[in-house]
């Protein structure tokens, strides 16, 4: 039987209250939301915490998906299920539905949250790659106020983020630009399992149809692959083509450092990194073309 070590529990009544609790309780305290990464880690005694601050009541402040002019804002307490089912996200950010379909299983998705996934910063976790791919930024609040950091600054490596001991991730902001789309793909062995490899891609075209920017993020192939800058550099200014995407795939494979394990050999995973990069870039380009057609026919 696995149970967590003894702990104290407090329920936050506001974000401000949560921060005050964290401030008072010190480094042995941590936020719990869905708990579907944290509680298993506590049961396995991989993490030792003395206090949990439960933020599940903070719907008004932290549970929202807002599509605004030029930006999408998603609250940290938004559950996987809501990200999957959100119709508002589909036109501009279909990558969320792609990814959420293959995150854990429906029962786990009822509890797990966006903020929890990002703060867990597991290198096999999907939403870190998704948010990095989209060029998202994270809003972190502490006693002295709010700061906004890019996903690159947020994700410091496996299980490490920019969130300090008395701080809380409150929302994720994703910039929206015209002529863009995105996609996510994962290969896994069975429902709910960790990815063998997963890849996310986002493409932004300029008015001439050339690639203004492209971003690719991988999961489960090493510690620092949530963003691969070499791919962005290689694709900028080029036409979206199979050749360009194949080259991006090669760069993705080169940036990967997978290990051979029960989910597959390192060589197979590197192959998947290349193939999934190609597929998601292709899918993003197709989606841009589809949306352009829709607009023309409208």
């Amino acid at each position, binding site marked *: *039987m*696995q*149970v*967590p*070590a*003894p*702990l*104290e*529990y407090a*329920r936050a009544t506001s974000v401000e209250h949560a921060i005050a609790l964290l401030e008072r309780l010190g480094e042995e305290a941590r936020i*719990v939301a869905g*708990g*579907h990464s944290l*509680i*298993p880690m506590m*049961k396995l005694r991989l993490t030792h915490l003395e206090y*949990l601050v*439960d933020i*599940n009541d903070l719907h008004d402040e932290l549970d929202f998906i807002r599509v605004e002019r030029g930006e999408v804002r998603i609250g940290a307490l938004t559950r996987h299920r809501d990200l999957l089912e959100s119709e508002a996200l589909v036109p501009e950010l279909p990558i969320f539905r792609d990814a959420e379909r293959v995150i*854990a*299983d*429906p*029962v*786990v998705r*009822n*509890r797990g949250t966006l903020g929890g996934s990002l703060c867990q910063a597991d290198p096999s976790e999907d939403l870190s790659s998704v948010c990095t791919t989209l060029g998202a930024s994270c809003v972190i609040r502490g006693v002295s106020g709010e700061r906004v950091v890019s996903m690159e600054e947020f994700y410091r490596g496996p299980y490490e983020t920019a969130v300090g001991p008395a701080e809380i991730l409150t929302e994720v902001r994703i910039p929206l630009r015209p002529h863009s789309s995105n996609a996510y793909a994962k290969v896994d062995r069975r*429902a*709910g399992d960790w990815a063998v490899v997963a890849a996310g891609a986002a493409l932004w075209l300029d008015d001439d149809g050339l690639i203004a920017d492209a971003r690719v993020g991988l999961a489960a192939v090493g510690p620092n692959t949530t963003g691969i800058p070499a791919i962005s550099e290689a694709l900028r200014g080029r036409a979206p083509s199979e050749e360009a995407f194949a080259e991006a795939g090669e760069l993705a494979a080169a940036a990967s450092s997978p290990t051979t394990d029960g989910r597959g050999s390192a060589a197979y995973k590197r192959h998947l990194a290349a193939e999934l990069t190609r597929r998601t870039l292709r899918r993003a380009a197709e989606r841009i073309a589809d949306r352009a057609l829709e607009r023309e026919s409208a």
Partner: protein
Amino acid sequence: MQVTLTVNGEVVTREVEARLLLVHFLRDELGLTGTHAGCDTSNCGACVVLYDGEPVKSCTVLTPMAGGHDVRTVEDLERDDRLDPVQQGFMECHGLQCGFCTPGMMLTARALLDAEPDPDEQQIREAISGQICRCTGYTSIVRSVRWAAEREAADREAVDAS
């Protein structure tokens, strides 16, 4: 610490350790042993209960996190000596052999039918994809849930006709 929550329609208050998992609270504190403890790692789904109407894995919820919430276990499916159509479906279509996964499977099926009264095979398979059955190969479970969907549709028609 003191926790108050609603379990199967009854408000219960207990003094518990904050680390007590909901599955153990239900089984050991309340004696509701219909909820099974399986893998302990939120993979197998034997411990699924309805939490504010949605299936959750109760091995991954701390009891105080359920404070103020509404929990429903398999014991509450039968009401007024009448089995829930999902339970009847599992009987009619042999939706179980050893029975270990059955309470969780039935509660997920109940939540699915409440949200989607006429699910197709794919929707049923997706809904139960976080739960493991080592006996049936799932086929008879899917059939059981379809049986329940059809029974409820027939019951609704009968009510409309009367």
